């Protein structure tokens, strides 16, 4: 299944958002996620199914003013 993560397309085996993050190596990272532009809380990632062509955003703390 093709999923776009932060504008990069990945061919993944994952079927949920939680599995996707695990597969891509985000385990343990302090991140937040959005699916097709909608925020998905950490607790809902395991229950959030993926479909071909979905767009995922993964963000983390960064310097800001």
């Amino acid at each position, binding site marked *: 299944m093709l999923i776009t993560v932060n504008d990069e397309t990945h061919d993944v085996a994952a079927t949920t958002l939680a599995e996707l993050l695990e597969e891509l190596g985000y385990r343990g990272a302090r991140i937040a996620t959005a699916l097709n532009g909608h925020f998905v809380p950490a607790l809902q990632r395991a229950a959030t199914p993926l479909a071909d062509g979905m767009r995922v955003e993964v963000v*983390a703390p960064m310097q800001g003013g």
Partner: protein
Amino acid sequence: MDVLFYGQALSSPLMLGTAQYPSPEILRDAVLAARPGVVTVSLRREAAREKTGQAFWSLIQELGVPVLPNTAGCHTVKEAVTTAHMAREVFGTDWVKLEVIGEQDTLQPDVFGLVEAARILSEDGFKVFPYTTEDLVVAERLLACGCEVLMPWGAPIGSGRGLNNVFGLRALRAHFPGVPLVVDAGLGVPSHAAQALELGYDAVLINTAVARAGNPAEMARAFSLAVEAGRLGRAADPMEERDMAAPSTPVAGKAFLG
């Protein structure tokens, strides 16, 4: 008495941004020199293989200063609201410095989108610090939405021009005597920060002026002294201005030498 920001006193009226420093070490030195009441932080895309955000988060935790996440770079209500939700989860705080940018050259807020986003987020339990202009009507609307703090700009973000509209900022202070007010954006040198506190503003937010100084740590310390001077000056009740000179040395008893 300490000014409360959503019920919380800050240890200093200086809020310090964490962006644009030459290195993480210099950022750390600047924060240690400034001893700010909060540091502002943001969110950006994280690549799994690089984990740059994780290193930054470790540094911020080590500094032990409360964080104020921003929605910098957001141009729509939806973007800003989604970013605020992600920030609340990542940073573990319901404080958010709400930016909805409306114009690319001046980076001034889209005040219509700002009011709408502030209402949505306030209803959702966020404690919103809106980056706004000095417009009194917009300020009224933001307060009516549930905002308990206002952050008017001094000048365009990163411009270093100081307080562009002193009259407007003074009017805002006078209209909302009980609302914590923070000058956010546009300050360039410590005297600008002192002036904001002398006008009765409760805090200032500085980033570029410190990060882009030749010596960020020294500039951070200078700003920290400036806000303290400004606050003390305000509390000491400044004299009134007058148009004509008035001799400070007594005239009575002066020797006649003509």
